[in-house]
């Protein structure tokens, strides 16, 4: 498939001869091309905000535009730039290129035009540093966006090598929405160009839907933990699915966070003035409930009433694999439940920086769901929220953990754009008995599911090399980070035990 003019296989011109008489196909009879040469997504004329239903996707975008103004398919010539009027008025006052596009659609043109090719994004890209096949974020973002405007270009397959670390967002001095462009291009590539029966697609779908596997595994956690790391099984997974045998699957908790929450009878503090809704995500629920428990105990220590609304995956692994439909389905559940909690006066707290990044940035960038902006505005990372609303340094001034401890702290990439890369170091460095050393600004290299793919494993470890070296140079023999997959990589590369800042906070303040 070299042209992306239709939405799916049923949208071919042959079928417009009567198989389904949509408005759009009737237009073809008027001599208007049934399929304007515009691409599907990432196009200012199109509803690039992801809509799950294929048919709706087609009719809301192209045909609406076609009916009202066929010239929207041109690319910024004077005629369309003046709104397609016949006035011939070329004065700058009449020139407003944004107005020619239907209102409400995602317009990435402004972002692409803001790129002045300084290449800061490329120098911030951990994949481009090790992967000769990867052309870098500047190509994947603004350049690819321009290429595909003409509709006869496939999305370059290299988009699947982007690990979605989002460091380019932080590097860009012009605020080009790079990660948003990558997410869109990847979504389009997977939707339209990827073979759905391929091993790669199936493997990616399984990795992206970690929650589904984790939920099943948690029904028999001990067996699952054993079986997932059983040698012959891992060999087979590597050969058949492309999941690297070098990696060790995380253990499943015998009691999930939600089971623990239910057994303890829910919140122990009731306080209508200080409420938070905990978005624990999949990993704190199924694998590291001790992080979730620490969150609850620390927040209750500060007098918060904790709510634990029903929730699904934040979508991070799905974005990274272009599975936007899956992500949207989960987002609908999350937004509905979190909006309800916000209505009860709660702010949303995540303990994983990728979950908070997703709810805050990717949700409103990619989906148009009622209330999604509210969720974005009310979401915070757990330590961040306490630092804003409580006198955390004061509370820690006289506190100290039971034993002296030294940590090698790694800031997850997704913490960066939220301004959180230094929060753990700054919170703990004044605490007696705690040494907290930042191991530098390199990427851990795992980027969620990226390092869980056999063909990416080597690259993932090469990216991580710098962090491993710095961890070993640091005094601490215990690692610390907010991100569960960074933690996996840190443990994998150094053998260190890895903890979450909330656990140290719990130990220092509550225990």
């Amino acid at each position, binding site marked *: 498939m070299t042209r992306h003019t239709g939405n799916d296989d049923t949208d071919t011109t042959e079928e417009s001869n009567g198989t389904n008489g949509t408005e759009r196909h009737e237009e073809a009879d008027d001599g208007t091309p049934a399929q304007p040469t515009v691409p599907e997504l990432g196009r200012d004329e199109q509803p690039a905000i992801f809509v799950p239903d294929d048919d709706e996707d087609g009719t809301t975008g192209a045909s609406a535009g076609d009916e009202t103004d066929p010239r929207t398919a041109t690319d910024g010539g004077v005629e369309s730039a003046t709104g397609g009027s016949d006035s011939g008025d070329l004065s*700058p006052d009449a020139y407003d290129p944004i107005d020619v596009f239907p209102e409400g659609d995602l317009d990435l043109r402004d972002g692409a035009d803001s790129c002045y090719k*300084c*290449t*800061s994004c*490329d*120098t*911030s*890209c951990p994949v*481009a*540093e*090790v992967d*000769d*096949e990867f*052309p*870098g974020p500047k190509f994947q973002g603004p350049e690819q966006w321009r290429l595909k405007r003409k509709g006869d270009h496939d999305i370059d397959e290299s988009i699947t090598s982007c690990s979605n670390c989002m460091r380019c967002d*932080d*590097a*860009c*001095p*012009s*605020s080009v929405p790079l990660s948003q462009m990558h997410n869109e291009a990847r979504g389009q590539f997977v939707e339209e160009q990827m073979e759905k029966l391929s091993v790669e697609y199936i493997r990616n779908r399984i990795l992206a839907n970690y929650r589904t596997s984790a939920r099943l595994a948690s029904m028999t956690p001990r067996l699952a933990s054993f079986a997932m790391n059983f040698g012959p099984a891992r060999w087979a997974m590597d050969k058949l699915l492309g999941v690297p045998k070098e990696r060790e699957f995380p253990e499943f908790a015998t009691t999930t966070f939600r089971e623990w929450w239910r057994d303890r009878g829910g919140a122990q503090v009731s306080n209508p003035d200080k409420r938070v809704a905990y978005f624990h995500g999949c990993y704190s629920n199924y694998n590291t409930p001790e992080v979730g428990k620490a969150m609850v105990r620390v927040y209750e220590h500060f007098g918060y009433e904790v709510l634990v609304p029903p929730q699904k995956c934040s979508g991070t692994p799905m974005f990274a694999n272009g599975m936007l439909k899956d992500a949207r389905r989960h987002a609908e559940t999350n937004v509905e439940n979190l909006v309800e909690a916000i209505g009860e006066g709660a702010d949303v707290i995540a303990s994983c920086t990728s979950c908070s990044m997703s709810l*805050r*940035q990717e949700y*409103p960038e990619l989906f148009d769901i009622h209330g999604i*902006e509210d969720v*974005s*505005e*009310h*979401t*915070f990372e757990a330590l*961040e929220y306490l*630092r*804003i*609303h*409580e*006198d955390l340094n004061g509370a820690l001034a006289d506190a100290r953990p039971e034993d002296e401890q030294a940590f090698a702290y790694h800031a997850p990439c997704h913490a*960066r*754009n*939220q*301004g*959180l*890369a*230094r*929060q753990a170091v*700054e919170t703990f460095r004044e605490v007696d008995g705690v040494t907290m050393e*930042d191991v*530098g*600004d390199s990427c851990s290299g795992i980027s969620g599911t990226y390092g869980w793919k056999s063909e990416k494993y080597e690259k993932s470890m*090469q990216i991580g*090399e*710098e962090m491993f070296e710095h961890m070993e140079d640091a005094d601490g023999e215990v690692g610390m980070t907010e991100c569960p997959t960074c933690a996996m990589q840190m443990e994998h590369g150094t053998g260190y035990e890895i903890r979450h800042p909330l656990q140290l906070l719990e130990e220092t303040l509550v225990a």
Partner: protein
Amino acid sequence: MAIDSDVLVVGGGMAGIAAAVTAAREGADVRLVSHKASTLRQASGLIDALGYVPATEPTTPLREGPPTAGRELDRDEWPDPEGPLSDPYEAIDRLPADHPYRLVGPDALRDGLALFDDLVGDAYLGDHTDRNALVPTFGGSVKPTARYPAAAASGLASDDRPALIVGFRSLTEYDARAFADRLAAAGVPFDVAGAEVEFAEAFRADAKVTRLAKALDRNEEIDGTPAREALAKAVGPHLHDVVDAEGGVDRVERVGFPAFLGDDHSAEVRADLADRLGAAVFEIPMGPPSLPGLRLEDLLYDALDAAGVRFETGTPVVDYETDDDGRIDHVLMDRKGTKVPYGAEAVVLATGGLVGKGLDSDREGVREPVLDLHVPQPADRYEWFVDDAFGEQPYARFGVRPDDRLRPLDPDGEVAYGNVRVAGGVVGGADVAREKSASGVSLATGLVAGREAAREVTQ
């Protein structure tokens, strides 16, 4: 509750870092916020103080009326600047009276450079003298600069050892042979030749400099040969390329490479190559994206950490509130949709100039977007520029105008906010591109702003 600190520095470049470290050393509790990763990564990594004093008057008086860009009229012409200067300090008096150096004085520049020396340690050279060093840059020109990375040390133009300049076909922004010819034409006191070698071709055509640096850092195998060895082998046949005035052939004593010789382990990469080549190895500073800039960014952020400064990037300042005395009470940071107040006794604004986006411009005017400080400018847009691209461009000196304590002034010449100081590119009055003074202005004003802000807190 606001996130409070004594001093809040807005901006993560050279000026912001100088201000933050200075204030912290004076005992203040300092926080530095930066909207994006520092644009130091776009900088050459050279620390210029003052290389030229450009003429501020045209050769003949300017015509009446707007500049002639695009029209067939006589274009204005400007004399060549004075320079390259050997001593940046003695030339300060010849700069315009409202130049930042004239406001803070030569001692501030001296102290600023001393601070820099202290922060970067032996990664930089040039502090043994007040005089400028002459460093060849990738355009083939020789730049007067106050401090230079150790990686560039063997490349100085004042050195008379014969030199080979190495280039790569796939590195399109840089042609080693043209570069060598330009150096020779400029009359450098050494024999020089350029050679294009096979090495970077092993990587993709548009490989990032970070990719090449990483391959050398890790000494990755390229077609079975470790990268450093492969590079040395490619250069080996050219070590006798230099021909002196008598037509004799010298073996070169130093070899210059575009600046990608490793990132984390660059000293080791250079030493390894020097050993293999039997010649000194140096880097030629490149345009953006710049590894010397990235390395400098790492050094300076480590220094911030060591000074106990809190810092965060990724979140912009979007608003501010004043108290009853007309001072900034707190600024509001946009944390992904939520405005969070950051309070401070004193604020240093070091957000950069037009490139760093500390100044914003459109057809209507030029603005300082964070605190809405006054930026003097001609009302008629045609008076923002002159014809001669290398002439005295008024826009180049646009910026916030402060008093000699770096407090920003309002349109009436009064102090705008008593507890704000401005530093670096956001300060007007310098034409840093023509003067070669960007780093020096940032260090001198950053140092004074940091000192002043700390004084504001202790008073």
